[in-house]
Structures are given as structure tokens and as C-alpha cells.
């Protein structure tokens, strides 16, 4: 008998259609976010400027618009998109490997650790302790994320088993501790204290605007990391059955867990370095995408990456235009949306799990 004769799981939409719509939504939101801000740039100008930059002259856009679009808006939109895809994908990976739908980079303390690492990196870079080529800030951001996850996981693990409540408490403890250390670092360091508003804006989830090389490099690194995550997607599915069952299906459980945590921490480190602590994107997006496309990591990873990007691009656009000319960090908006979802998830999981 072939599978066609059976009622296959059919209430989920076609993967192709979902990916197509999500890609379209990302491009549409990116275009909109490039136009909207303290100075609105009309669509015709935006298109003309972008085309002019690839060598096709179609109109005569205002020069200041060209500068805002090419040097400020587009790099920022790309940074927001990169942040969103990194966090959403990191959420999927942490949740898959810890078999826990509440594991988000923020909740388990990874973002806090990454932020502390990034701050240390900024301090080292500002004092020129190491040559600039060392990229010390993103490196320490990644190490901070890794160390925090390792700590949260080790603290909450008892007799080979991780309780959800223990993991959340350990994540809360580490997040608070690294948060306090970050604050301490900012206040005892003269240069950071002088730039208190900028530093705190970044820390609370302020998307940074970088030069084009950094923008392209971070975006490419995120894409490569997400493609690597796709290679272990089928094994993450098997891990949902439990470690012993996955092992009996021939999965190298220890290797998959290590790779997944490394990739997720790398994505968290990258996102935090770009945009500080943009909380709960890694929780809200994978959770809603699981409801839409199901828990299969082969489709969940790319869909979450695309929708996570769109989500942060739009929330960042709101963050910089809603209270214009004042600009608020996007992390504040994602928290305002994410915390109610998080609380609802805990309520739902109270019935499902033995807290």
C-alpha cells in the first residue's frame, strides 16, 4: 500500500506554500521598514536608489534619501532580520535538544551570558588590548552564551533528568547574575558610563547599524549556521523520542546535542552582539510556527528563521517610528509581546508536565 492511499497528516499547510509566503513576507516587511522612519522615503525613490546601486539608473532620487537608505536603513533592516533569524533558530535548537518547549535563549540565560561576554569584548576592544582583527566582541559573546547554557543545564540536571522548573530557575538565576555583572561593568567603566544611554539602549535590544562588510558578514554567518542546523534536523526529531530511543535509532546522541548547543549558542552570541538582548523571539516564533507547520525540525527551522526575521524587522520598525523622533530598543517591544505568550505557555504546560 502506498502512502497516497492513507489520510496523511493533512491539517498542516504545504511546506512549499508556507516557505514561499514567509519569504515574501520577509521581503515585503524589509521593503516597508526601509521606507519608514524619522524621514519617510517613498517607494519609487527606494526602488530607484536600490537599482542605482546595482548600476541601473531609473530616476533621480533625493541624494539625502540615498544616503539614509543605503548607509543607515538597509544595514539596520538586515541587522534586524539577522537578529530575528538567529534568535528564532536558536530557540528551535535549544528546545529540540533540551526536549523543552520553554527553552528560549533569554529564558535559559544564554542571552544574558552573551551580553556580558560582548560587554567584556567591547571593553577589551576599547582599551586596544588585542588587535581589532581578533573580533573579540562576537567571540566573547559566543563564549558567554555557551558558558551560561552549560551552567543552566548542569545546575538543573539531576540523576540524568532535567526538570522544566529547575531549568527555568537556573536560567533565571544565571540571567539575573550576568545582568548584574553587566550593569556593574557599565558603571565601573568610565567610557561605558559616559555612553550610558547608548550602551543601555544596545543592552535592552537596540538593533545596531553597521558598515556593509559587517552587515554582509554577520548575515552570511547566520545563514551558514542555520544551514548547518538543518543538517541535524532529522536527528533533533529523533531526540524528541528521548535520548535512549534516539540512540536505538542509530543517532549519535552526544554528538547531536553538542553540535546543536554549539550552533544555538553561536546564533545567540551573534544576535546579542548585533542587537543586545531581544527577549523571547526564540520562544514566541518557534512556538507559533510549531502550531502552523508542526514540530518537524526540517520545516520548523527554515520557517522559524524567515518568520523570526520578519518579526524583528517589523518590531524594530515600530520601535524606531512609533515614538518618533525618540527611538526605543526593539527588545522592549518583543518582551511586551513575549512575556504574555511565555505565561500562557507555562499555564498550558502545567497540565502537560510534572513541574
Amino acid at each position, binding site marked *: 500500500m502506498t*502512502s497516497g492511499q*492513507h489520510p*496523511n497528516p493533512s491539517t498542516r499547510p504545504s511546506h512549499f506554500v508556507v516557505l514561499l509566503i514567509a519569504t515574501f513576507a520577509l521581503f515585503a516587511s524589509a521593503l516597508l521598514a526601509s521606507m519608514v522612519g524619522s524621514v519617510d522615503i517613498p517607494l519609487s525613490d527606494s526602488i530607484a536608489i536600490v537599482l542605482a546601486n546595482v548600476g541601473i539608473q531609473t530616476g533621480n532620487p533625493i541624494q539625502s534619501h540615498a544616503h539614509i537608505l543605503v548607509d543607515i536603513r538597509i544595514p539596520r533592516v538586515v541587522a534586524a532580520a539577522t537578529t530575528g533569524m538567529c534568535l528564532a533558530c536558536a530557540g528551535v535548537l535549544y528546545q529540540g535538544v533540551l526536549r523543552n*518547549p520553554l527553552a528560549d535563549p533569554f529564558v535559559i540565560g544564554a542571552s544574558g551570558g552573551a551580553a556580558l561576554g560582548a560587554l567584556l569584548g567591547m571593553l577589551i576592544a576599547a582599551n586596544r588590548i588585542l588587535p581589532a582583527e581578533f573580533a573579540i566582541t562576537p567571540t566573547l559573546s559566543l563564549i558567554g552564551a555557551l558558558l551560561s547554557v552549560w551552567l543552566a543545564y548542569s545546575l538543573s540536571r539531576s540523576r540524568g533528568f532535567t526538570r522544566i522548573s529547575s531549568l527555568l530557575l537556573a536560567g533565571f538565576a544565571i540571567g539575573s547574575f550576568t545582568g548584574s555583572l553587566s550593569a556593574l561593568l557599565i558603571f565601573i567603566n568610565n567610557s561605558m558610563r559616559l555612553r550610558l544611554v547608548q550602551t543601555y539602549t544596545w543592552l535592552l535590544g537596540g538593533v545596531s547599524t553597521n558598515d556593509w562588510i559587517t552587515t554582509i558578514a554577520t548575515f552570511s554567518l547566520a545563514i551558514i549556521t542555520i544551514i548547518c542546523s538543518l543538517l541535524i534536523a532529522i536527528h533533533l526529531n529523533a531526540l524528541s523520542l528521548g535520548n535512549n530511543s534516539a540512540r536505538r535509532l*542509530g543517532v549519535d546522541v552526544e554528538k547531536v546535542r553538542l553540535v546543536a548547543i554549539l550552533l544555538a549558542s553561536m546564533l545567540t552570541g551573534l544576535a546579542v552582539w548585533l542587537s543586545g538582548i531581544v527577549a523571547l523571539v526564540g520562544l514566541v516564533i518557534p512556538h507559533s510556527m510549531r502550531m502552523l507547520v*508542526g*514540530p518537524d525540525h526540517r520545516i520548523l527551522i527554515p520557517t522559524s528563521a524567515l518568520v523570526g526575521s520578519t518579526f524583528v524587522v517589523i518590531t524594530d520598525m515600530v520601535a524606531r517610528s512609533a515614538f518618533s523622533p525618540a527611538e526605543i530598543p526593539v527588545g522592549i517591544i518583543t518582551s511586551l509581546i513575549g512575556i504574555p505568550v511565555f505565561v500562557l505557555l507555562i499555564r498550558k504546560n502545567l497540565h*502537560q508536565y510534572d513541574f
Partner: protein
Amino acid sequence: MTSRIELALNQVTFSYENHQILDRINFALTTGSFNSLIGPNASGKTTLLGCIAGNLTPDTGQIILSGKDSQLRQPKETAQLLAMVPQQFDMPFAFYVREIVAMGRIPHKRFLGRLSQSDNEAIDQAIELTNLSDLQGETLSHLSGGEKQRVALAIALAQEPNVLLLDEPTTHLDLSSQIDILSMVKDLCYAKGMTVLSVMHDINLASRYSDHILVLHKNRIFHQGTALEVIAPNLLRDVFAVRSEVHMHDGYPTISLLSSYNSDIGTGQ
């Protein structure tokens, strides 16, 4: 039935934190046979299955699976030959039953795990054999204990293994489901030449369905043979500390428990 040996254990020893759990275990199971493993609580039955399944590594000894030492096989290769149904399993995410059963094909798949025609056929067959056709679009949280047990069995069947290990497959099932599942597994032994080793609590069910019974007691194989050879009042007294009567019913030795030697409390019979 052929008399080829599908699974053999040779002097297998396992200890945990200086506490010996398995002591020089030896036995051989023929292809297409239904074998039961019985013994009192904490006699090491689940540990023994864990060693055979590759979740635990024995301290010494060999486990020969389909003619080759399983320690010399890659985990993926072992998973193509051997499957295990655990006592219970749960899923943190809402996979559909069909998607869960499809995970049984992971040992047979390569890059990104796209399902081939033969994969789909194996999944269909596993779903049909375990009577899950109407439930394949459901998530695990909507299923009863017995239905979940059938899903666990379906994953193992989708692996198309030569050897199937079952850890107390009837624990969560009502009486009719117990008979249904054991009859189904027994049919698979004959129809597909699958070799089954099942941990059993119910001696009467073990007697009825087994070609061969292994008795694990005090970390060793205490006795083994056919139901007629193994199930006797003396053995039940020595291993389970119960006073019992054994009589033949429908051609199988069947036990009636009279009392426990441990508690002096009779069953009232």
C-alpha cells in the same frame, strides 16, 4: 522454523557503581522465535535489554547479533537489525502518530531523511499491523496508554528489524489489548522470521506465547527452556518466593498462585 541463531549472548557481565547486575549471561535465540524473559523485580531484566539494545555497554562478554559482535557494528547498522519497544515513552512536541512511526525509518535514511517509496510502505505496514490507521493523524497527547504502546511498537516495526526487544509490552494494557498485542508479535515471528525477546511479568502469558523462556534470577540465567520445561512450582518457589499450582490449560502450563513465602499472607484461595 529454521534453527539459525539470530541473537547470542556469551558471558555478558554488567555492573553499575560496583554493584553487579548481570553475571556471565549466556543464551542463544533462534531466528523467528518468541522468547520471554521472566524474573523478580530488580533481577536485571531491563538492564539486560539495555545491553542488547546498545544503550548500556557490558563490562565483559559478547553480544552476537545476526552473526556479528554488535560492538563491532556502527550504531546505525545495529538499528537496522534490532529495535526495542520501551516500557513507556512520551513526546514533548505535537508530532502526528504517522510522523512518529516514520522516525523508525531513520536508521535506513541518508541526508535530510526524505522518505522513499519503500520507507512509506514500511510505515504503512507498521501502522496497519498495529491497528493505528484511524489514529495516524492524532498527536500522542490524545492517545490512551495502550494506544501509545501500539505507537511505540509501530516505530520498532517500521525499523524492519531482525530482532525485536520488548520491555513489558503489556504493562499499560487491558486484558484484550494484552492478548491482541502478543498475538500480533507472535504472528510477526512466524510471518517475517522476526526474533522476539520480551520481558514479561505475567507468567501465564509468557507460557502461552513463548517458544522459549529465560528465567533471570540473582543476576544470572537461572533456568531456560520451553514453557513445559521451565514453569513448575519449584521454580516459582525458588525465583519468585510463591507457593503455586501448575496445571495444563489448552496445552500450556498455567499457574494458580496460592500464597507468598515472604509475607505468609494467603491469597484466600
